[in-house]
């Protein structure tokens, strides 16, 4: 009937209108896409064009909208400080960050520069997607720590945007209650693995108050655990190295995970749950390792990255949590891994010089102080570790544990010989390798198979993954 027709026409126009709105809004919100997109089709715009023309570059980073805004604030400071370069920040959520970048690469629409996930750097480099940035710090008063340079074929292809190391966190209240001395924050007093396990046992109790090794201890009714070691594939390398083994050879081309020392280390980590009964089963999928353990008061010690000081521990500290930082225990050698997402300049860019200038400015600690003072990032430039005044500036901070403790367990630790770069700084195909390793070890954590069996069975596949075949 007539009314039906009227309603119908209205519906059609609504649909078209909404469709157009959706289309328009997407176009308007993508100023990033047009400059770089058109740059590839126009004749090359040289950077020596009249300097009244501001060079616009884009920088992509992972993070929430909040974090993106903070970064753009920093970028705006940069933009205001000079009139040759204008930086626009593109924040992409962490889960799909690399996927998005991959898409943009295919479409030829990469930003000029951005942060890249650690395990992708060497891969992208070998595909020719990254520019050489070794000239970035020529003439500066300080360079980033050696362990923070991503190297491919002898060239530095990226510097880490921040430093991160693995630490041992612990809940001071739980230690006090059990009258157990704290873990050491000084590297020369680091615990051996045995000492670590023994302490953990003192802090593990079941529902009857019994510790492991005591008669009548019931592993099924543990109410509090002593320790938890993260079993993410890339972190396991630290333990393998500490035991005299490792994942790869020094140049990343040979696989060493089949060595007895490496296997033994992994098995010992699993045994924390299986034999020693001091650790909960490590689920390892979520980001809240510290939340579930130290902050919740369920586990007394936990290994995790330094960023937790800023991401969860500072809020907990405000709510009354007393926590401490210590150096990792060791098997034979003292080892921790350092890592950090890489700031790269994409080879698709038309403005490499400007991109490097921006990166250098941005990673200068003064310019992203928010992330450093919150504890999420650690500085990259050497001077912050060696110059005591700068170190004080960094660590004297209500967000952090006491100065001496943090300095010893984190600052000194990070520049000691114990700190080794995580494999992805120099090894290709780490994503494939780590995924395969994680899948290989799946049943090891629950005790269904031993590390030796699992790794031996899959050694050839692991080697192939490292070579980039599948």
């Amino acid at each position, binding site marked *: 009937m007539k009314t039906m027709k009227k309603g119908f026409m209205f519906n059609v126009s609504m649909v078209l209108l*909404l469709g157009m709105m959706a289309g328009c809004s997407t176009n308007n919100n993508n100023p990033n896409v047009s400059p770089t997109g058109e740059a590839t089709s126009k004749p090359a715009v040289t950077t020596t064009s009249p300097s009244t023309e501001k060079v616009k570059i884009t920088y992509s980073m992972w993070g929430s909208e909040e974090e993106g805004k903070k970064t753009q604030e920093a970028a705006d400071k940069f933009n205001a400080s000079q009139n040759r370069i204008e930086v626009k920040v593109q*924040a992409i959520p962490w889960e799909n960050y690399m996927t998005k970048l991959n898409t943009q690469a295919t479409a030829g629409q990469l930003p000029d520069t951005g942060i890249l996930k650690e395990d992708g750097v060497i891969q992208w480099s070998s595909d020719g997607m990254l520019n050489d940035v070794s000239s970035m710090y020529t003439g500066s008063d300080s360079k980033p720590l050696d362990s923070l340079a991503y190297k491919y074929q002898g060239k530095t292809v990226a510097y880490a945007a921040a430093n991160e190391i693995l630490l041992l966190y612990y809940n001071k209240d739980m230690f006090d209650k059990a009258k157990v001395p704290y873990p050491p924050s000084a590297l020369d007093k680091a615990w051996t693995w045995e000492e670590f396990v023994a302490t953990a046992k003192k802090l593990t109790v079941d529902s009857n108050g019994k510790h492991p090794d005591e008669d009548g201890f019931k592993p099924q009714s543990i109410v509090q655990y002593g320790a938890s070691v993260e079993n993410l594939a890339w972190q396991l390398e630290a333990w393998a190295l500490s035991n005299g083994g490792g994942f790869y050879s020094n140049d990343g081309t040979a696989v060493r995970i089949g060595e007895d020392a490496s296997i033994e280390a992994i098995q010992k980590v699993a045994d924390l749950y299986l034999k020693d009964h001091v650790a909960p089963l490590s689920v390892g999928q979520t980001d809240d390792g510290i*939340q579930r353990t130290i902050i919740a008061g369920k586990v007394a010690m936990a290994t995790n990255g330094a960023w937790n000081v800023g991401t969860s521990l500072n809020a907990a500290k405000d709510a009354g949590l007393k926590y401490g930082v210590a150096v990792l225990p060791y098997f034979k050698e003292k080892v921790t891994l350092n890592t950090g997402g890489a700031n790269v300049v994409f080879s698709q860019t038309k403005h490499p010089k400007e991109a490097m200038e921006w990166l250098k400015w941005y990673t200068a600690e003064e310019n992203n102080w928010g992330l450093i003072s919150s504890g999420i990032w650690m500085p990259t430039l050497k001077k912050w570790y060696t110059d005591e005044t700068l170190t004080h500036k960094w660590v004297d901070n209500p967000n952090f544990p006491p100065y001496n403790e943090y300095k010893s367990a984190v600052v000194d630790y990070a520049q000691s010989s114990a700190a080794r770069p995580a494999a992805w700084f120099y090894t290709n195909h780490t994503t494939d390798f780590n995924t395969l390793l994680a899948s290989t070890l799946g049943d090891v954590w629950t005790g269904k198979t031993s590390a030796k069996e699992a790794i031996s069975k899959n050694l050839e596949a692991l080697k192939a993954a490292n070579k980039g075949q599948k």
Partner: protein
Amino acid sequence: MSDAAYSRFKSKKRSERTINALTLLIVIVFALIVLFPIWWIFRTSLMTNPEIYQYPPALLPKNWLFSNYEKTMQIFKFWKYLWNTMIIIVPSCLGGTFTATLCGYAFARLRFRGKQLIWSLCVGSMLLPAMVTLIPLYIGWTRGLGLQDSYLPLILPYFCGGGAFNIFLIRQFILSIPRELDQAATIDGAGYFRILFSIIMPAIKPAMIVVAMFIFIGLWNDLLQQMIYINSSDKYTIALGITNFKGQLKQDWSMTMAATCLSFAPGVIFYLIGQKYFVEGITLTGLKN
């Protein structure tokens, strides 16, 4: 009624009542079981973080912290995500329902060459899972048409019939409407389109609502497609918002759960409203394959 028959009748009535009572009991038990995970999420949203990790886990929160929802709304841009989700869903529902009706009408009522062929292709596409075409479509939309970070790849496909299942549904419905109505209109001089709009559409209103609901639910839950085509966080849908919220560095389970409960609300409300038509629609479909 004879005495024997009457007593048989009465005992049958009694046993039927006991069976009904028993059934009700079982249904209630199952309903509780089904609702339990939802309750779990809800109660987590009302607790403090330390409370959540307590062992043994508590069934009821100590204090019903509805303030968590306030806190969450400050960080979790619920309304914005809802708005974004609606921007995708509304045109898709309208477009999908409209085109499904057009196509269903053609298959149900009209005669034309190639009908069998096109119908088979249509049915065939029902059996093609979305996963299979995901990659080329992705490349096509983003690389071929340059639609980065856009809602269009999520909306436009619904303008092509809204999915073969929906065309199928409409077709079945129209088939159940007697042709005499059409013929009467034809004799009165109505063309095919007039018949469609004036006669068929009003008659299959429940089916159209059902199709709209199917599209709604499909899009509401479609995390994968949304994750792939949407980049910037201010374009996030509810599903993406929750995923990103969970992954944000500031892990706070009570807030995550509160955000989750917020994301439940529109779907449930929509379902309760449409439920009436929905069940009517399913029933009338007949579903005779």
